[in-house]
């Protein structure tokens, strides 16, 4: 009797457990399905506005693009044929000066960080991180006090200073990472041949780190080109053509801001066209930096 009962009980118990397990599995799978569909929904929620920004900018912006748009100066509201030629030149000058100063400065600081360990380097690294989190309008105030109020007038050079300060921490961090990626053995080989450290840096470390450096610089420039807030009280914008950095100057993001908040449809259209141009420039710089980095990286390997 006992011999036959025991397997029966065991069998029943096993069935019970299997039922429980499959019930649990079904429940867990339902939870899983619900949870994952909510996450998937969030992905869609995230993509909709981001796609909408690009779609509207392209659709409205293309309508504004014409030969006049790229070659004329701005016109008052109601007078057709206005363009952003002065703002294109202005942005080129403002961001060009900023980059010319910020790039060597940032790469030198990145080289210093990559070659040194310890407290001092840690403090500087943390400072770069914190500076990159300072709101850009604060840097605009700093540039205003340092270069606008002391000189008595708004100027493109004050805008360059503000944009340069924004670029520096990006370049520092990117170049430190790139330089740290250079194998120690390369630098040591140079040093063991009797080369000075400056020669090794210039001939070995920087050329090897070049893809990373270019990526960092292009990203910093892309960030700088789109910044509006630091230019509000420095370069301030202009309706005229200006190439003297000591004068107020137009810039692309300022045009988007100043024309965009007007109630006139023709000025709003200029703003859309400028926004599209700005996005194009920024995306070309961002994508370009990736392509250049990938390409140079491959050639070196």
């Amino acid at each position, binding site marked *: 009797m006992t011999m036959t009962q025991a397997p029966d009980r065991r069998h029943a118990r096993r069935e019970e457990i299997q039922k429980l397990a499959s019930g649990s599995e079904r429940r*867990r799978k339902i*939870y*899983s399905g619900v949870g*994952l569909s909510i*996450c*998937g*929904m*969030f*992905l869609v929620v*995230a993509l909709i*506005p*981001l796609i*909408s*920004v690009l779609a509207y*900018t392209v659709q409205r912006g293309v309508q504004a693009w014409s030969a006049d748009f790229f070659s004329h100066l701005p016109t008052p509201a109601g007078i057709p044929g206005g363009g952003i030629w002065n703002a294109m030149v202005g942005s080129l000058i403002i961001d060009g000066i900023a980059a010319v100063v910020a790039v060597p*400065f940032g790469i*030198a600081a990145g080289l210093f*960080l990559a070659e040194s360990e310890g407290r001092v380097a840690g*403090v*500087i690294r*943390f*400072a770069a*991180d*914190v*500076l*990159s*989190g*300072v*709101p*850009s*309008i*604060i840097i605009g*105030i*700093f540039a205003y*006090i340092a270069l606008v109020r002391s000189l008595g007038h708004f100027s493109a050079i004050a805008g360059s200073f503000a944009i340069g300060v924004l670029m*520096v921490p990006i370049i*520092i961090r990117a170049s430190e990472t790139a330089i740290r990626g250079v194998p120690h053995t390369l630098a040591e080989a140079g040093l063991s041949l009797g080369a*000075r*450290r*400056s*020669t090794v*840096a*210039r*001939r070995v470390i920087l050329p090897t780190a070049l893809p990373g450096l270019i990526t960092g610089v292009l*990203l910093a420039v892309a960030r700088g080109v*789109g910044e*509006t*807030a630091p230019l*509000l009280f420095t370069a301030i914008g202009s309706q005229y053509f200006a190439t003297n950095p000591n004068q107020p100057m137009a810039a692309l*993001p300022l045009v*988007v*801001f100043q024309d*965009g908040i007007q109630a006139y449809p023709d000025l709003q259209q200029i703003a*859309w066209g400028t*926004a599209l141009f*700005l*996005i194009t420039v*920024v*995306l070309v710089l*961002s994508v370009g930096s990736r392509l250049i980095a990938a390409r140079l990286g491959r050639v070196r390997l």
Partner: protein
Amino acid sequence: MAHQAVLEREPLGHARGSNTTGGGLRLPVVSDGLYRASLAAVAALFCLLIVALVVTLVVQARPAFAHFGFGFLTGTAWDPVHVKYGALPFVIGTLETTAIAMVLAIPVGLGTALVLVHAIHPKLRAPLSTAVELLAAVPSVVYGLWALLVVAPWVRSIIEPDLARTTGGTGPFSGPQLGIGLLLAGLVLFVMVLPTMVAISRDVIASVPRDEVEAAYALGATRWQVLWRVVLPSARSGLLGAVTLSTGRALGETIAVTMVIGNSTAIAHSLFSPSATLSSVIANQFTEATEPFHLSSLIALGVVLLVIAMLVNAAARLLVRSVGRQSAVSVALA
């Protein structure tokens, strides 16, 4: 073999010869001491720049702080005509817009990051990730233009009436429906911090040790259980860093908020009311400030914003950095 070695030795000898006579001397070569000193000088100059920034702002804000004292932070009136300056409406406006943005950005950003890492076809992963990163590069003024000309009419005619109808139109959902205001500013901030939130969360989630995830799957956990009970707890402090960093972005964002918040210096009583943030009021009034206390008070607002932003960012960096160390340790152990 011997033949090869000779072939190799010859060009080496040539290179060495040319190096000592020509190539190396063409570039200005400085001594190691001078080289190190000049790099250190650049780094020191950088620190000096940050110190100068903080000191300049504090010195310029001093008249306002000295005149209004602690009341500057708690004052609710901002009235240049009667020389009354209180920062409270803007502090509240900044916190409110940031709160709206983060309440939306945390679940949406986290969910998106989880899907991107763990629940999407591998062929879609790379293009979607790149797209998110590129969207982080779109200038904020473009988001502002889009919010003002595309989203504001939609918020005014659909979102705000719907919210008022479903909630009875009381409390935070009362008042005239203008489109521009607190709600729209929060919404545009949400869209703007989303790429940052997704990109950092995705990196943090992807760095969760693979063996932990696979161990959970091997125990029979469903995908959701793995994400909820293994991935998220393991990535917790890094995700907190992502949230803090995104919060920092939202707190300091200027131009897009200025375009859509309506710029009212009164404390908003409804989500639909026009309001102002610390940065938007600076952007709006800075060039119009002719009265000395006005400019000093605006710079004092900048100091308040700087302090908040620096604290939040320092916290974020420490959180993200501690994660970096953790994962380095776990990599070393594995």
